[in-house]
């Protein structure tokens, strides 16, 4: 039997991104072909999914993600998402997606004002998304966070909508940053765009203490592969 096809996944590199190569390595090991795409490109290559990686795009000037949102490539990412394409934002990528309006809500400085860098416990709230299909409902994951501005903010009306639509995909066990309702990751209404503050790409090898990140990135790779096969 031939090997399953490897979906091609774009990882966007902004000036100041620093987890793009980690994301590429993790996705490659989980069965994808990762392609780094520079922020100044106005088109995406033919890919089955897009990842916005962690880092400090544009030095986090003004607000985290506020400037990256206007990068040339973001027009193409928006069109890709609008057509139902899979888009994952990790940490700074999550902040960029919120600033771009591709995900609801916003991220503010941690309530403690401290940069947090440690493993955190996460609860999987939704498994019917292309990003969590490998997880069990309620499963606890251990994945590291490393951020200074990960406090998720949404008003009461938006929170009610997120809860009702099942858009809150991950919650923290012990809340590391003051996020409202301990939200660690949210999806858009159609669940093809997902952002989270923890770093699944840093938890795919036992050497790093946890392989739980592979559940999230592996779900993405398999969802991307399914789309590839359906489209063929």
């Amino acid at each position: 039997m031939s090997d399953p096809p490897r979906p091609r996944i774009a990882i966007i590199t902004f000036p100041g991104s620093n987890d793009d190569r980690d994301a590429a390595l993790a996705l490659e090991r989980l069965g994808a072909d990762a392609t780094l795409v520079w922020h100044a490109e106005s088109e995406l290559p033919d890919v089955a999914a897009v990842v916005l990686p962690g880092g400090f795009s544009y030095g986090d000037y003004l607000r985290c993600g506020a400037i990256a949102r206007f990068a040339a490539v973001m027009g193409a990412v928006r069109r890709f998402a609008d057509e139902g394409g899979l888009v994952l934002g990790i940490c700074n990528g999550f902040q960029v997606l919120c600033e771009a309006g591709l995900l609801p809500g916003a991220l503010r400085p941690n309530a403690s004002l401290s940069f947090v860098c440690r493993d955190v416990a996460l609860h999987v709230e939704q498994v019917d998304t292309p990003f969590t299909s490998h997880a069990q409902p309620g499963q606890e994951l251990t994945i590291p966070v490393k951020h200074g501005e990960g406090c998720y903010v949404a008003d009461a009306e938006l929170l009610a909508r997120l809860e009702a639509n099942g858009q809150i995909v991950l919650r923290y066990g012990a809340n590391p940053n003051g996020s409202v309702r301990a939200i660690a990751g949210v999806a858009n209404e159609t669940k093809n765009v997902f952002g989270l503050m923890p770093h699944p790409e840093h938890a795919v090898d036992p050497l790093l203490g946890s392989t739980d990140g592979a559940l999230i990135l592996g779900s993405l790779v398999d969802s991307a592969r399914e789309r590839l096969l359906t489209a063929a």
Partner: protein
Amino acid sequence: MRATILVRPKPGILDPQGEAVQSSLQQLGFHVDEARVGRVIDLELDDGDESVARAELERACEQLLANPLIESYEIALES
């Protein structure tokens, strides 16, 4: 023309910087009930019609200088 834009965290939005500033002021003996920390952006503009400039600045605030979900803004213009 010079524009000064004040960007503030909206009421009800957690402002840990403001809390840290308030507690530091308390420690120094200043009695402050609340502190909120925002941002000032000074812009130099070509001289022209003030109402046109104001409308442009509103757009700039909505699109980039403030995040309307969490921040409010005030625009002051001086010739």
